[in-house]
């Protein structure tokens, strides 16, 4: 692999202008737990990639959704693999974000001047959970339907505005085809864009402020 990049670099000079990115200094005495964030990001990339592929065959309509998923799993070549990768990466993504958060907390990497980065991280986590919630409905099977029914019913309990909120989230009084379509839109467009922006900020702050020395 290195030889391939050497070939490209000797012709296009890619390494030198990116030297500040490629040759970052990190403190000594770090352990592998400092890689957890990057692992979570890897899962995010896998989710984005497999999600793009799934969107080629998935149909977000009340009538077609379940059948399109069955088709992806059984008829599309390697469809079972792409769908499985997507599903498992989603779970692992959240697990590794939690592990990463624990590491940041235990190594006290949230103290000034890094408080803002912690907040950005928490915000990103919330958006990731929303992604998981919206994605869960898309197979439109019994599990998806009832999980969404229960989840959105919780929103109804918010004082004063609960009913309006749930009407807005569901696109109607109950979970129906409109819910599926707006959840799909949020899942593939609005939420990934938001996560990308937040992660860009997250990485940028780390780059600027450096990685804190291990305890």
């Amino acid at each position, binding site marked *: *692999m290195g030889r391939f990049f050497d070939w490209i670099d000797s012709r296009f000079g890619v390494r030198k202008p990116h030297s500040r990115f490629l040759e970052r200094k990190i403190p000594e005495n770090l352990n592998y737990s400092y890689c957890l964030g990057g692992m979570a990001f890897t899962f995010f990339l896998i989710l984005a990639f497999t999600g793009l592929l799934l969107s080629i065959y998935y149909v977000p309509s009340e009538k077609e959704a379940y059948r399109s998923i069955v088709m992806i799993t059984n008829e*599309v*070549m390697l469809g079972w693999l792409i769908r499985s990768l997507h599903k498992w990466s989603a779970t692992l993504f959240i697990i590794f974000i939690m592990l990463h958060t624990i590491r940041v907390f235990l190594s006290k990497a949230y103290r000034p001047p890094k408080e803002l980065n912690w907040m950005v991280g928490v915000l990103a986590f919330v958006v990731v959970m929303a992604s998981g919630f919206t994605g869960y409905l898309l197979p439109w099977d019994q599990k998806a339907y009832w999980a969404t029914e229960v989840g959105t019913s919780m929103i109804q309990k918010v004082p004063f505005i609960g009913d309006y909120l749930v009407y807005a989230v569901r696109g109607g009084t109950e979970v129906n085809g409109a819910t599926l379509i707006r959840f799909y839109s949020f899942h593939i467009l609005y939420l990934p864009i938001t996560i990308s922006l937040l992660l860009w900020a997250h990485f940028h702050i780390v780059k600027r402020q450096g990685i804190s020395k291990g305890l």
Partner: protein
Amino acid sequence: METVDCRLPTCLMERRVFLKRLINFFFSILVLIAGSALVYIYPSKTKERKLHYVYLIDEDELPKRGVRKVEFKYKTEDIVMINRAYLVISDNGINAFSPVCTHLGCFVNWDNNKMEFICPCHGGKYNQKGEVTAGPP
């Protein structure tokens, strides 16, 4: 590629060499996954679905008019399926209907008093022709 001192029973390797090899390995996995995307995108031929004929019931046992529920078994390539159907005998002859409600998939019941199919889950109603008359579907 750096050479590795492998004369010892446990092959000692510099950490840098090991990490480089590890990263190369993961990179090649990534290339495989990316390549699988091309296979995935290429449309696959759908398998031809064979038409199965299933024995339901003797014509003599059917009423001249009305609705009759039948249960039947049939075998596909891998599994034995047990299913039901509603047979509606009317001026149009004998029609077989799937018992599955088009709303969310519960089995509907035939109400002989009201002469309509009623879904117990959300109150969907169908007439004898299978058209929706009330409710969610």
